[in-house]
């Protein structure tokens, strides 16, 4: 069975919600839409205070090429355009909408009927994806229409569908595979058409045998789509590691793109969103979120409208336990800590995880004992102990020489460190600084 070669760790899977059917969360009272839910320029609001909007109405337009539009997931009145603390932990501008009823844009096909064929051309499909505001749903939130138009000088031969879900606790993609298999396969065909490629590989980790079996049976009659079970290892869901696991090719260090080795990777959530956008004319207004945690009385997978405050999700899952020590948007290895439970669900929110205090509190940091476990764990072949020390001493040159920009921030190093050193914190700081130095240098030349 395939997997990536260098490093990796095996965190406890804790997939508490793997066999919980997706439930639909009721519409919130007020929905909040931060203007930067994606990588790139923030969106620009195209509604004003007091405007009436329907479900699916566009409320913000892309702020540039690398940007995405935002649609209202509720119907009602724009209450204000103000700031909100989102999952990034910073206060960012956002559109607040007070919910009144549940009126949908008439152009959206709300039926359950499977639409198999579309007459749209390649350009029309990309336009459609762009208009629907679709971004990578795995967490990186890279605008999908940009990713589907790789630079012309690369020839793409493989589309990889990321259904690995290597993060512990999260099961949103797993449930989507089980519940929307037909739609996903149509979505894959749409992407193949856009890319002009005839081979797609669905990468699934072996801990989801039901999903592997289902996708195998569904794809047995379809030529060009193949299901590849992968050996469990974190961070297999990372783009570079997945490409290596599936094709054996290694993407060169930044600024090289996955396209330079002939691959495009899309998350299954994104594929489903593309199906809905192209076949059902439905913009990206809801997503599956795993609400989980060992202390929750009812951990579940929820279909949530964008903009719903996290507190609503936690309430549905049984309320926040007394001993909650950390609230995380995303998985435990790469998710972002939430400052409080008022943050809204965004396009990249794959899960809401509540860690008990005992698990959340970091243990006291000790001297590095040079055990080399971080070096063994790093999937990018870096030396985290060295990078962290360089960062502590503000030695950005040393950090750059030792490939700091290759770091994918997967957290393997820090999660294995017996001295409990905050390696990734330091590495992030150095990455930030070295990135600035490199940009300044490039701007000069």
């Amino acid at each position, binding site marked *: 069975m395939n997997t990536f070669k260098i490093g990796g760790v095996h965190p406890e899977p804790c997939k508490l919600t793997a066999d919980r059917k997706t439930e639909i969360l009721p519409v919130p009272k007020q929905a909040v839409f931060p203007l930067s839910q994606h990588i790139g320029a923030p969106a620009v609001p195209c509604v004003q205070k007091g405007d009436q909007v329907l479900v699916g109405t566009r409320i913000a337009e892309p702020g540039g090429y690398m940007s995405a539009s935002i649609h209202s997931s509720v119907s009602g009145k724009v209450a204000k355009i103000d700031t909100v603390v989102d999952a990034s*932990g*910073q*206060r960012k501008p956002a559109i607040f909408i007070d919910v009144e009823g549940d009126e949908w844009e008439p152009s959206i096909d709300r039926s359950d009927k499977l639409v198999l064929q579309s007459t749209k051309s390649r350009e029309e499909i990309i336009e459609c994806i762009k208009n629907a505001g679709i971004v990578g749903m795995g967490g990186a939130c890279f605008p999908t229409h940009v990713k589907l138009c790789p630079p012309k000088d690369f020839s793409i031969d493989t589309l990889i569908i990321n259904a690995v879900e290597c993060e512990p606790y999260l099961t949103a993609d797993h449930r989507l595979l089980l519940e929307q298999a037909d739609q996903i396969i149509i979505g894959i065909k749409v992407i193949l058409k856009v890319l002009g490629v005839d081979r797609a590989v669905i990468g699934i980790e072996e801990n989801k045998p039901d999903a592997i079996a289902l996708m195998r049976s569904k794809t047995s009659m379809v030529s060009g789509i193949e299901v590849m079970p992968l050996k469990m290892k974190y961070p297999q869901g990372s783009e570079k590691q997945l490409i290596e696991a599936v094709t054996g090719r290694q993407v060169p260090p930044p600024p090289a793109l996955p396209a330079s080795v002939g691959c495009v990777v899309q998350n299954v959530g994104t594929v489903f969103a593309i199906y809905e956008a192209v076949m059902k004319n439905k913009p990206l207004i809801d997503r599956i979120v795993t609400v989980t945690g060992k202390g929750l009385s009812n951990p579940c997978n929820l279909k949530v409208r964008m903009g719903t405050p996290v507190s609503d999700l936690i309430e549905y899952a049984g309320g926040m336990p007394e001993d909650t020590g950390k609230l995380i948007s995303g998985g435990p290895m790469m998710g972002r*800590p939430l400052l409080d439970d008022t943050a809204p669900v965004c396009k990249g929110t794959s899960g809401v995880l509540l860690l008990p205090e005992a698990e959340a*509190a970091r243990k006291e940091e000790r001297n590095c004992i040079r055990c080399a476990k971080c070096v063994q764990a790093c999937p990018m072949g870096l030396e985290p102990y060295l990078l962290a020390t360089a960062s502590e001493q503000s030695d950005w040159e040393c950090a750059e020489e030792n490939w700091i920009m290759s770091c994918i921030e997967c957290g393997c190093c820090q999660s294995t460190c017996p001295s409990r050193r905050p390696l990734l*914190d330091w590495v*992030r700081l150095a990455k930030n600084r070295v990135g600035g130095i490199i940009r300044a240098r490039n701007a000069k030349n």
Partner: protein
Amino acid sequence: MLVILTAVLALGVTALVLSLVLYFVKSRFKVEEDPRIGQILELLPSANCGGCGLPGCAAFAEACVKSDTMEGLKCSACRRDVMNRIAAIAGHEIELGVEKVAVVRCNGSCQNRPTLRSYDGAQRCAIAAMMNGGDTGCFYGCLGCGDCVSVCKFGAIKMDPETGLPVVDADKCTSCGNCVKACPRGIIEIRNRNKMDRRIYVSCVNKDKGPVARKACDVACIGCGKCVKACQFDAITLADNVAYIDFNKCRLCRKCVDECPQHSIVALNFPPRPSQVAETVEVDAQPVTEQTPVSE
């Protein structure tokens, strides 16, 4: 006896030969250096802080001697009289500006600004600021990890354990600006030293709207603009919901201090005014730090 004699002789001859070699090399390969560079170097603090924009004190001394004027050459770590002597050695005339000092523009102590969360990542402000808004409701204020303390070459900044805020020791501060660069929140500013080291400044940089800022911190500037109206010298400007006092225009009249409803304007090193003596006692009852505003 002979052994000792041989040893002494052998070592003595070796020493003699080697010293001759050294003498020869020194006189043959002597590097001529302007003696003034050495004299200036002796006056400089040798902290190599980089505040002058040159790579270290030696480079600064060389630049002083080589350039024709002292224009653009100012060791921020040296007091005025020292700079005068340096200029005299280098043979230049100088016009020196006002003495400056670093000022911490945040008063979000533990009492004024409750912590809502606990940050337990790496203890470096730069990291805390990059990751999230920090552990209080104010996303602009001091993070309290002490990056400014660790970059200060002169030991002029200390964290006050009582308030969790950095305190500048004005006697030691040389206004080199390293702390200004280190602070990810841009709280520290280099401001003029006035007579008796008196200073008036807005001790807040919170750009949030009034209600949000007030909720986060008891002494946050809410951008009400009362100080702008009170100032007779046009020294105060209001931008992004926060007031700023231009230290070049301020005449230290203290009108704005009385006017500020949030007590976010701080007046330092002023004698207490007669009418307020009674109240200052009350202020003293709380743990008073350098940062405590003169309150009404």
